[in-house]
């Protein structure tokens, strides 16, 4: 295994990536501008977008050599609102995986809006993990558009750890038969943080599958919303589409708004949705305490267990373990600021 980690010289030293993976190339976006283009031995390239943002090209038929990590950082070099347009083009028959991380390094009131357009050509397959970890004054909105052609598979796992206002809007269009789209997410918020998730899963043709699993843990006065809609067009027979959203509320003032919706125009489909919100299970807490596990540790174990099945959807074990560590330290209250910055400014 070759370590292809590249640190661009302009990257401030206070930034610490907690998930550098072996065999994964790192590319930096500073305030929306790509530092330097990237190309790996299998031909996967990451270029600058026209004005800002990135363009990922995965050539037809290739199997990506390792993975690539895009690290998007906001700092005080540019504290004005940044808007980015990004493209991920997955060539026919290719397979790839990407990790996209968003961070902030200074305590400015950053406003970032980022469009990520994913074009999955026939029989392509890609696994995209998005990790969001920003400061308490940062608001970041990502609008995903995913177009899936025949036989393609796109899985997006979003792990939202920290930030003032984080929004993820996902529009997925299953356009070719046999396409599969899987969206999973964890969101953790405390203080006055707010995290909004919106999904429209559009089944346009027959024989496509989709699934959504989103789970959130909210403490203090945090708020979250989940608006998820599955739309099955009249001709999209034999669709299988599932959605679930579960929330754990740790305080009386934490709030979640869940709106699971189904809009089905076909008559031969399997679809389901479900949403819950609840508190920690007191019986399980007592059970753990009766075995000598302290109250706070028992609560933590239960929270980790709550989101475990979402993390399990990340199939790279090394990455999954590191994200699990971050989720754990987040739940332990070990970061009151963005965990990737050594400045501890808030």
């Amino acid at each position: 295994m070759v370590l292809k980690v590249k640190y661009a010289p302009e990257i401030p030293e206070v930034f610490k990536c907690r998930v550098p993976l072996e065999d994964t190339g790192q590319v930096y976006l500073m305030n929306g501008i790509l530092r330097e283009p990237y190309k790996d031995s299998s031909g996967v390239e990451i270029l600058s977008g026209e004005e800002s943002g990135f363009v990922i090209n995965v050539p037809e038929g290739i199997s990506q050599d390792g993975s690539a990590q895009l690290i998007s950082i906001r700092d005080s070099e540019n504290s004005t609102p940044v808007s980015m347009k990004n493209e991920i083009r997955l060539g026919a028959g290719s397979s790839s995986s990407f990790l996209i991380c968003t961070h902030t390094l200074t305590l400015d009131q950053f406003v970032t809006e980022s469009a990520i357009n994913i074009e999955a050509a026939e029989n392509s397959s890609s696994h995209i993990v998005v990790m969001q970890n920003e400061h308490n004054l940062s608001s970041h909105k990502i609008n995903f558009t995913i177009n899936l052609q025949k036989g393609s598979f796109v899985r997006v796992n979003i792990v939202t750890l920290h930030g003032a206002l984080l929004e993820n809007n996902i529009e997925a269009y299953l356009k070719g038969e046999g396409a599969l789209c899987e969206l999973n997410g964890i969101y953790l918020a405390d203080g006055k943080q707010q995290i909004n998730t919106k999904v429209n899963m559009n089944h346009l043709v027959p024989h496509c599958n989709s699934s959504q699993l989103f789970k959130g843990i909210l403490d203090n006065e945090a708020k979250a919303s989940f608006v998820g809609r599955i739309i099955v067009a009249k001709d999209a027979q034999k669709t299988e589409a599932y959605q679930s959203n579960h929330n754990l509320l740790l305080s009386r003032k934490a709030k979640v708004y869940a709106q699971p919706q189904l809009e089905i125009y076909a008559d031969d489909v399997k679809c389901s949705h479900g949403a819950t919100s609840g508190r920690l299970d007191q019986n399980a807490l007592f059970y753990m305490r009766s075995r000598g596990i302290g109250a706070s540790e028992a609560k933590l174990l239960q929270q980790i267990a709550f989101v475990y099945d979402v993390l399990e959807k990340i199939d790279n074990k090394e990455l999954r373990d590191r994200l699990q560590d971050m989720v754990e330290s987040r739940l332990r209250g070990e970061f009151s600021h963005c965990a990737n910055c050594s400045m501890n400014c808030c």
Partner: protein
Amino acid sequence: MLTIKGLCASIDGKEILKGIDLKVNPGEIHAIMGPNGSGKSTLSSVLAGRETFEVTGGEVIYEGINLLELDPEERARMGLFLGFQYPVEIPGVSNVNFMKTAINEKRKYQNLPPITAAEFLKLMREKMAVVEMDNSFSSRGVNVGFSGGEKKRNEIFQMAMLEPKLAILDETDSGLDIDALRIVAAGVNKLKTEENSFIIITHYQRLLDYIIPDVVHVLYNGKIIKTAGKELALEVEERGYDWLINGN
């Protein structure tokens, strides 16, 4: 080991325990029998520290310390164990992780370093053999998808891992078939030493064929109405509780 004097407890203002007196010495096995609703499970819950019950009177001295002032986890770390009548399922927490956390919390309390991975594995294997548990149990979520018998075996396994000084088994025999009952009883007998004690709460004499008690108590309406040797269990099995309740 354990001295209970005049213990009274209530839930939602309703008095359940109305003055329990009980003394358990090291090395003794006590059985507590009694009809439904007599307060057996309440007594075990109060001893383990479940907060839904309010102690309204009396005292409990465990190893010279006022037990009622301690949190459930402190009681456990001091060697008290409650085998649940209805073990709780905890999805997402594996048996291994659960036991490792529990053992390390106890070791921390004893000022010992965390257990090494090798020691832990060895201990797991050894104790799983005690209750004839399959290795696949260890990676599964705590009690998730376990049958009634498997859950009870898991309770005995946890007890074996934690090596308590005083174990309270709350109707561990309920819902067990004869094979599971034999395994559970054999587990208890293997763990029995001169130093540790057991309180076995049961409806039936059946379990006491396998685990021979030193003392048998009958609990009724929140009070112990009769205490005798192991022959009392047989008499209860034969005659029911009415003769004790009505005093004839």
